[in-house]
């Protein structure tokens, strides 16, 4: 039996608006897909999940029509299942491990996770059991998946939690980066709303490090979790990159997703133009290119310096992008931009793959004399980010040479009482890893508070 397809909106039509692409399984489709599961004695899918969701159990519950229970099983290990079901790179995690993948196609674990999470959300979710207040208070800096997950667990453990967020909206990359057609803001808002109901306080417009320092927060709270994510977009460092019309994916996506620049009555502008070139091969590049089409570009092309096989983006995004009319150009790397004030052309050099090295990986190198120029109206650069620099001067907080914060296995930094997790520790990674790190740190913080270590600091 083949994998049950996710109902989705038609490619060219959906490329005209920002409504969600995937429509979600119905009850029948979910049961149909769940019954494909072989219920392996040793569920390798669980090993494939970075946070160890009991996939076999929840899929069995879906197959039986016990949707609420399925929701509860997922929620024990994943505090953001409606998000992860939509954006996890399942093909290299749970679904990549699934034995059905060798026979036909893997169980659609991501779609099923999304199904049970959306159902639970529709009903208002689970009421967390009330825990006796611990009397301790924790500050969370940054409201991305790491911060939200940490806040949820700490609150459940009875601690007072305040989340400090620099922007005017909570959610981190989930609201300013990942577009609405892939992850509706309503999903993130529901999660934030649930935390507020649990008593978590959100202080927006609070850039920690410029406003309160971490030490100021320690005067007011008993522990601190830092989840400030990635910042500082990388550029190509080639001539002409500062021309008007060349922008980072973060800027382009933030203008559209957070500031609504695509709306006709928008207060915030965005440069789109007719011919859009996007540089990169990850999820960010694909989000930018598909957003460009939706925001009115006539043609939108991804230029990636390696081949399609090496693209780090989710496979579903690549397929969706093609269906929507996105062009892909591989083994091409920009070496400069031309134009007077506004960018008009992009010069690229053709790349070739080298023989696999000792690690089996093929690298790429430029082919001399193979430069070509293409006309462009705007360019979006999506070649990664360096860690957020806002807390770099914090005393006693050890940072790596790359600028990431150094922690132990539970997320404790060298500064007593201060924990960190997510992209600020790992460098740009995934939602699920950030969420997992936030949860681990919540356990670490709880143990730290209850250990009496706090008294020694005071």
């Amino acid at each position: 039996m083949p994998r049950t397809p996710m109902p989705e909106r038609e490619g060219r039509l959906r490329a005209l608006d920002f409504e969600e692409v995937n429509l979600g399984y119905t009850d029948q489709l979910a049961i149909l897909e769940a019954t494909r599961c072989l219920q392996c004695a040793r569920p390798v899918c669980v090993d494939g999940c970075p946070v160890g969701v009991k996939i076999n159990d929840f899929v069995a519950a879906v197959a039986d029509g016990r949707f609420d229970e399925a929701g509860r099983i997922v929620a024990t290990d994943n505090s953001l299942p409606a998000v992860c079901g939509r954006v996890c790179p399942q093909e290299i995690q749970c679904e990549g491990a699934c034995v059905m993948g060798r026979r036909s196609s893997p169980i659609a674990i991501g779609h099923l996770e999304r199904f049970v999470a959306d159902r639970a959300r529709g009903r208002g979710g689970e009421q967390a059991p009330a825990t006796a207040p611990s009397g301790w208070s924790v500050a969370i800096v940054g409201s991305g998946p790491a911060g939200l997950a940490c806040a949820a667990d700490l609150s459940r453990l009875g601690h007072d939690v305040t989340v400090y967020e620099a922007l005017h909206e909570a959610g981190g990359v989930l609201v300013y980066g990942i577009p609405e057609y892939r992850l509706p803001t309503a999903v993130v808002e529901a999660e934030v709303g649930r935390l507020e109901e649990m008593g978590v306080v959100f202080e927006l417009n609070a850039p920690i490090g410029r406003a309160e320092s971490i030490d100021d927060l320690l005067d007011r709270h008993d522990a601190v979790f830092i989840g400030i994510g990635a910042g500082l977009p990388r550029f190509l460092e080639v001539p002409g990159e500062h021309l008007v019309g060349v922008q980072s994916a973060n800027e382009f996506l933030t203008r559209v997703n957070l500031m609504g620049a695509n709306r006709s009555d928008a207060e915030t502008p965005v440069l789109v133009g007719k011919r859009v070139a996007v540089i990169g091969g990850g999820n960010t590049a694909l989000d930018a290119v598909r957003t460009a089409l939706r925001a009115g570009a006539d043609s939108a092309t991804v230029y990636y310096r390696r081949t399609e096989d090496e693209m780090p983006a989710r496979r579903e995004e690549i397929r969706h992008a093609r269906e929507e009319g996105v062009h892909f150009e591989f083994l091409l790397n920009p070496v400069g931009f031309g134009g007077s004030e506004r960018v008009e052309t992009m010069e690229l050099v053709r790349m070739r793959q080298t023989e696999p090295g000792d690690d089996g990986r093929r690298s790429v190198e430029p082919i001399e004399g193979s430069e070509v120029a293409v006309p462009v109206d705007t360019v979006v650069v999506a070649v990664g980010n360096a860690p957020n620099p806002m807390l770099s001067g914090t005393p006693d907080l050890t940072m790596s040479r790359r600028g990431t914060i150094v922690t132990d296995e539970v997320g404790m930094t060298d500064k007593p009482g201060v924990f960190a997790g997510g992209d600020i520790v790992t460098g740009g990674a995934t939602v699920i890893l950030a969420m997992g790190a936030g949860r681990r740190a919540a356990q670490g913080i709880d143990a730290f508070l209850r250990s009496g270590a706090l008294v020694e600091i005071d």
Partner: protein
Amino acid sequence: MEGVYRILSAEIIGPDVKRFEVQAPRVARYWKPGQFVILRAIEDGERIPLTVVEADPEFGVIVLIVQGVGKTTRTLNSLSEGDMIPDVAGPLGSPSDIEMFGTVAVIGGGVGTAIAYPTARALAEAGNRVVTIVGARTSDLLILVDELEAVADTVIVTTDDGTAGRAGFVTDALADVIAERRVDRVIAIGPLPMMAAVSALTLPHEIPTVVSLNPIMVDGTGMCGGCRVSVSGETKFACVDGPEFDAHGVDFELLAARNSSYCEFERRRLAEMGEK
């Protein structure tokens, strides 16, 4: 501490220029001269940076001086006492370097004077001899002259049309000051051509010169790269590395071009505003 940004007073201090006292306790408590806020004048509005002129940490109040040039600043200037500003995020940016330098010339052009004032005051408090040069197109546009007189050792006023102070540009006045005495540092804040001219003037004299740049910003936390400027050939993010930079390394032309990125959009929005 969260979410209430009430305008406590709004006063017109020049043509299209308004002085606001805004309740913003977090900013007021942690702000240092040279830092700015990013605000939205209305829900769904654009995020724009504005430098803070003064702060009263005890009462949780900040002072902003706004020149109505674009859509957002004009909307802001239509607000009055008692109105709310939906978002004021800050403080942001790196504070000005305040040390004992010796003699410092602080130059403010137009509303740039509002940004220069707190720095001039802090430099004076740190023991520097502060010479301020305040320039404007015409006398109506001069601001904060009395306030500067209270903190600086010398205040020189220039207007392009000679309606107040000496006729001419701030650079003319600065050239005379440099000719008369040793100047250890120059700080120039104002329109880009003015800052570029000051920088060109002080370069041959090898006087360390600092300018406060005003690129387009979105988040103000080093996330978007929209505020990038080129300083001594390196890409810097004004919202975290600045806004103050070594003038002699700044590519002013590039910044001027980048600042015009959205001028078509601005013009259209302003035209629509006029129709309403």
